[in-house]
């Protein structure tokens, strides 16, 4: 099969949310000894970008978005170990530390953002929910992360987002590590007031903002 046809099939498998097909095509690329970074960037990535576009146009809904994100993650879990074996590494969009702030145990929204960031090529370190505020900064420093994503679902816990930014300021890391905030009570105004670098109203917007912050 011509490599361009293979890429088209990969793109289609992500758009249609066909996990088995995406996994099969990833294995086929390995068997054909193709350049796996090219396979990711020309085959699978256009698929997830198209899914994002379809979602923005109102054509796709959350279940389709998530199914495609699952497919992308499955294909990557086959390709990435092979890349490492061959001494390469997937070129990521950036490294993100994500979690729900201390005192808050909601994690669904945060999980959706993490899934979409992963599907769109970010390396995501998910700290879970109810994360001590210092841990966000410590982990970001330890992992040399570019962005910290802070989720909060209550007005009583969103203050934790501000406190993490204060910790970054204290450690002279503000600006070096970017901060994105999100969650039901969080608004663009709140993000600006506390000095966050970005605010995503939903998972797709979060991906866009993260990409923008990486290029700034």
């Amino acid at each position, binding site marked *: 099969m011509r490599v361009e046809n293979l890429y088209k099939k990969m793109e289609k498998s992500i758009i249609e949310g066909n996990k088995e097909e995406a996994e099969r095509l990833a294995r086929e690329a390995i068997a054909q000894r193709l350049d796996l970074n090219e396979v990711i960037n020309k085959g699978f990535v256009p698929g997830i970008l198209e899914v994002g576009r379809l979602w923005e146009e109102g054509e796709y809904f959350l279940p389709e978005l998530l*199914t495609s994100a699952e497919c992308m993650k499955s294909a990557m879990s086959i390709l990435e170990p092979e890349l490492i074996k061959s001494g390469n590494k997937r070129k990521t969009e950036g490294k993100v530390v994500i979690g729900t702030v201390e005192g808050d145990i909601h994690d669904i929204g945060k999980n959706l953002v993490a899934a979409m960031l992963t599907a769109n090529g970010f390396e995501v370190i998910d700290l879970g929910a109810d994360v001590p505020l210092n841990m966000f900064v410590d982990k970001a420093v330890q992992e040399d992360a570019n962005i910290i994503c802070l989720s909060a679902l*209550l007005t009583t816990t969103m203050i934790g987002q501000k406190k993490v930014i204060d910790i970054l300021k204290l450690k002279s890391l503000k600006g070096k590590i970017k901060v994105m905030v999100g969650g039901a009570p969080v608004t663009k105004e709140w993000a600006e007031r506390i000095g966050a670098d970005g605010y995503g109203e939903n998972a797709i917007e979060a991906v866009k903002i993260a990409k923008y912050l990486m290029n700034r």
Partner: protein
Amino acid sequence: MQRMNIIKINEFIVDINPDDLIRILGLKRKKSSKKEELKKLVIKEIPEIKKLIKPRGIYRIIDYEETNRHPIFNNAKKVALAICTIGPELERKSSELMRKNQILRGLIYDTYGSEAVEQVACQLDRIISNKARKMGFWPSKRFSPGYGKWRIEEQAFIFKVLPGEEIGIRLKSSYMMEPRKSISFRINFYSEPIQNSKKSMCSECEMKNCPFRNEPVKSKV
């Protein structure tokens, strides 16, 4: 805490229509093969989901004089405070599925849980409202801390009156309940009929983009 008048209930019926679940998951406006696929998946998951639901509720009726005199209780003769939950197992399973890259299944479990605890709260509401009527009072609609002017911090008062831990609910310092799929609320008992008693909680709330909204947004004139 007085042990008097604390009533625990373990018998609730939880039964969510798959079509309702799909609507909440966001496929309400669409007719497609994807919708049928999703419906099949939901129907397949429901028996497993139901095994993980352990509904429990607790309530207590107190006199107005025993409240903390918050304006939310104004004009009530008595107040019922209530907490209910579907237990921690479903949300644990949902998180586990998401960790295993089964994000959509995880979301289906979580969404079912949100609807399930809402059904439990509705049934507990009916039990309490019927009791109010038998006692000769007019019950208000139920209302939860965190909505309107009843701040989330008022959870502390509810948990002072009710032993939440007896049905497995813990109040965190952020006033969030654990398990997440829990609801706390109050129903005021009035001695005279009250206006708007049939209106839903949505009519009091101004989150105009909420996917669960079933009332028009109140205009600010």
